[in-house]
């Protein structure tokens, strides 16, 4: 009973802070791209898992994913312009790949 109650409280907390949590998550993707060094699977898959969980929890539409993918594409453009095919550009490309994949999957389910 206690656990259920705690889960409900947690759920309420997450729902109340939806915009903050999603912002943190999006920022963490951006931070990962700009973080120095090569890409890291633990970071990528952790954030991706959280993002997929958020889609389910917050009922995020594919539209949001594709808008975010456009934003990442813009980052990739800037990085390519200034750093050519640096590690950061490649991380942006990997995120773009993942977001398109997630978006396509979402849109298939939304139909």
């Amino acid at each position, binding site marked *: 009973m206690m656990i259920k109650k705690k889960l409900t409280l947690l759920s309420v907390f997450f729902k109340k802070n939806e915009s903050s949590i999603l912002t943190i998550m999006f920022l963490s993707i951006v931070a990962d791209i700009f973080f120095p060094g090569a890409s890291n699977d633990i970071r990528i898959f952790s954030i991706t898992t959280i993002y997929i969980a958020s889609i389910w929890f917050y009922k995020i539409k594919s539209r949001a994913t594709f808008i975010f993918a456009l934003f990442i594409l813009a980052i990739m453009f800037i990085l390519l312009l200034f750093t050519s095919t640096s590690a950061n*550009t490649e991380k942006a490309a990997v995120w773009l790949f993942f977001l398109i994949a997630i978006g396509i999957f979402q849109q298939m389910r939304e139909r």
Partner: protein
Amino acid sequence: MKISKLNLLPLLIAIILFLIPFLWLRPGEMDLGGDGNRLYFYDPVSYLQLHTPYNIIPTGIGGDSISYYALPLVSLFAVLGYIVSIIHLFLGPATLLIGMVNGMKLSIAFISCYFIVKELFTYEYKLGKSIVKGITEISAIFAGLFYIFSPILINSGWDKAILSHIQIFLNPLMFLLLLRYFTTHKTLYLLGLLLVTFIFSLNFSYAAAPAFFAFYPLSFLFLFLYTKFIRKIRIPIKGLIVGGVVALLLNAFHIFPHVFNILSFGGDVSSSVFSDQTKFSRGLDYFTGIAPSVKASVGLLNLAQLRDIVLISLGFFIFPATILLSFLFNKKNKTRLLTGAFFLIVTFFATASITDIGFNFYKTLFYIPGFKMFRNFFAQWSFAQVFFYTLLFGQALGIVLHHTKKIYRILLLSFILTILSITAWPLMIGNFTNSINWLSKEISIVIQMDPQYEEALRFVREYPEDAKILSFPLTGPSYHVVAGKNGGAYVGPPMFSYIAGKNDFAGYESLFPFNEIFVNAAKKDNFLLIQKLLSILNIKYIFYNSDPYIYGENFLGFPYDYVKAFLPETQEGYKSFIEKFPINKAVSFGEKYHFYKISENIFLPHIFTATDTLYTNDPLNFQFVHQFSNEPRLAVFDTDDVLPQDGKGLFVETNNTNPLSHLLKNEHLHRHEPYISSKLGDIYYYLSVYKEKIHLWRLRNNFEEYPNFSFFYLSKRIFEISKWKDEMLILRKEWKEPKPWEFYAWYTYNSWEAIFARYEKSASDLIIWVNNSPSSNDWKKAVFIKLKEQFYQHHLLVITNIKGYREKKIGDRDYLFSYANKTFRNLIENLDVHIDDPSSISYTLPIPDDQLSDYDPYLEDAQNQLLEPFIDLEGKRLSPLKEQAKDGMIEFDTVRINEQKQYALQLHITQENIINKVQWMSSGQVKEERETSELEVYHLVGNNNAKITQDTGIVQKITNWKPKTQYLITFDYLTQGDDFIFSLYDRAYKFGLKNSLGANLMLQRLLNSNTWKNHQAIVTSAPDTEYGVIQFSGNSEKENSEIYIKNLSVVEIVYPKIYFKKVSKDQKAPTNPPKIIFKKINPTKYHIQVFGAKEQYTLVFLEKFNKNWKLQNPEKNTENMRGNLARLYGTISKYIVSLFIKNSGNEDKIVASHLNGDVKESNHNNIFLEPNTSETWGKDAIAEDRHFYVNGYANGWNIEPLDMDGKENYTLILEMTTQKQFYLFLPISLLTAIILFIVFVVNIFKKHEKNL
């Protein structure tokens, strides 16, 4: 698909695209070179007659290689070429053919993509409104343009394009036909599709397997899902099955021979598919080597990999942006979602850079047999990637245009058109086909054929002997370089081989397995050996292209680079070089093309009977030891295959067991340069520590890879220091490896102590592993020498890094210096691998089974340079019979070998120091006292070790430093506690940095001692070296430091060969082999008439050994079911063929006589098909169990009188029996194609009638 007004624009574009390539080349110009030559454009008829229908490699020593997969297309070229030559179009046949193929690539690809996108888009968007129709048209047209002008396809090798490059249009065309068949079930599409698979059979063959498997499985899956779940149409399963069977029959002529080849275990093709070695060395290793250069960002933008990102490339963001916008505008389009999913799949395969897990998954795929074909993955998947990108982009553009205002549409389309036009411009104006030969001085690849070279081609085609050619100037990859009339040059496989029908040794690679022997002999002007080589390679003519345009400034590197170190560097040099050959006649065509005929007494015909046979364990090299047989008609057998029945002619070569012989190519100097990405302080670094351990554990039984990867990981520790030194901690206490659960201590990996401790542990593990391995002691010692060299390299690197370390606390650097020095000095001193005295050389004597006897030892001493030699055979001293070598060979006391075992022996010789007098060149002070040099080195603090100048160190030039020679350098030194660097340079070493004396660094060691110490180093000098340089330079913090050197010596290490000749009581009786007349029917078949075969003899065929070359007795039937069936098939085919073709009517005429008339050549033919083609079907092969390797590469048969039922005069047919598979399956394919064509035409007529 009816042509409507709306279709007119794309059709017009397609026609323009078809015509544009005709403007790329001027009349008579051709682009023929490259790895896979394009000579079928220049002379398709000769190419078809002489090369395409035979499973024989036409260059060098031959070999089997299936080439007939291009038969329909080359036949088509031949027909078209013939028609064009009749109607005399102004461009010339070859130029027209090239233009036509290029035009097809552009136009068919464009129009196919157009129709596919239109079809996909139309289904989702109803075409009610004209605006939608217009948008659909525009999107489909833009998709077509996007495909053909994609940077990936533009950079896909339009110059020197191999035949499979036609996949540019074949992929979309096949997809379109399949799509139409899946959605309409109309047989016409299936028939068309099947005919395409036949005409372009090459793209459905083993040769094009990567392209096929990258595109077709995914396309089929896409079409299946699209038809079943989006269009909700029944899949035409029956039609597909029938189509599959027909496709198999159509392509049976190449698929089945290839399948048999793959399943014939032990063959070349089979081993390339299944063997672990090729799976990893040519597959996974190559993949992991190039993968880091392939970028996901580049792939997502549809740009070409491994090219610079130019400003215009940034405009390609419009394509992914359009796709993303389409997903925002429309959620209902299922086709686009499906296309998007497939696009992501191909992008994953084409980039291999989607996360580390993805990359590791990709690597595991290489364990699947055959997957190594994707080692060059980005190129092989690129065509599929561009195709699915096109489908996705075409649909996305339609959606975006549909949802945007007119002004935005115009802007978007204008931008896309601008980007594509700028990208496509170089292709459209023909820049890609008019490119420059690689590494040349701006020499175009486009040529207009020189008429004088055409005359030379005719000469080769017509010379009567079945003999080979050696071409000069020799190239590395066995290419011919021929200047065209227009200033361009052909650089590609030798034309003599492909369109003149004679095997040509045009370069180093085609001289295999004698390539190293040849270039070394040429370097040393050893024409005795070269003569022997010309004989055993069946070389009758030397072709020399004296054109300075093709050898000299225009081609300084490729394709001559490696061989130039051995052969003359100028055309003038070549002229005098060729004059030294045993030639007696010259024919010239113009000023540039010369043929020299080899003297008849040197020449060995393609097929001959041997007059002498020898047996040895190293036939490849032994045949050049002229001292044991002067017979030119010599057959040298391998004792692993066969032993002499009477014991005569047996020679056992001793095996060299000196550890230093494993390092003849400076293997110990190899520098691993691992890429470091993980930070030592990261939490997951711990995982990579275990990954290394697991990797080594998996390699524990791999004697080559375990030491290599151990060295690699040792280097990794040092490179980690180089990269992270300023972030590394100094613990100032002993480091212990944290246990898995001690995660709180994982951070300590990021410390100097951890690096040194792990380095020591890895080194110690390797030492234990080597000691426990069951390998030979000499191999173990070689590994230890390599390891010690790694210690020396790494010690110096670490010290250099510590010098550049940013000190956090005072004394940190001193502490690190002391720690590093202690670690490495311990490692070096504990690894006790003293290099043996080079005056004592170890061997083993592998006596073959049942060959115990007396043996006469012979020591090879070609230069007469071995001083005071004697042999110690397990305690028994064998002395030379004469002090001086006779004819390069020293004979020793006879010795009795009476025990079946591997004997150990040692050769003792006296070796001299090549430095007669030590004369230091330096700015420092040199005092000579009692053979000790006291060298004072000035102001060397923080010197740059890479450069030697007169101010940095003390230098000794070694002038009598021979090329390609292994040396032992030893000296004693005392540095009084100061650091010094000992460096060794070679004038022509390829890898090290160059110093101011013009020599390149080979090795460097850090010296430091308070007492006299001895130092040893071994190196092999470069092939084209002139001198070596020894240098000592200071490396201490002091301004002046002193080093004492004594006993400096540089000694050549030699491994002279020792042969043990079995003593036979009787002299060899002179043999009287039968006389023969042979006639070439085609490259896979010879008729041999034998006269006077009274006793056993050896028949030699100077072509690469292949067990499928069989001698057949045409008069004896094979009495079994298979033989009966084969004869039945043979009889039927003979009857059918005789209805159309008669047997060759030309009478046998002797065209050449060799070896005093013992071997004659009848007039050779090149008949692919005649009634007699099947004459050997169901006939007995003879001496199959006595078919052996001879002379290290060729075929030899020991033929007994009983093999031919005691007959003395008879005919044998020598045939490459795998060619029969082609004769078996070709009629099936042809028949199917004819029937299919008739059905196709009938279908078209029926449809036409219906429409009427």
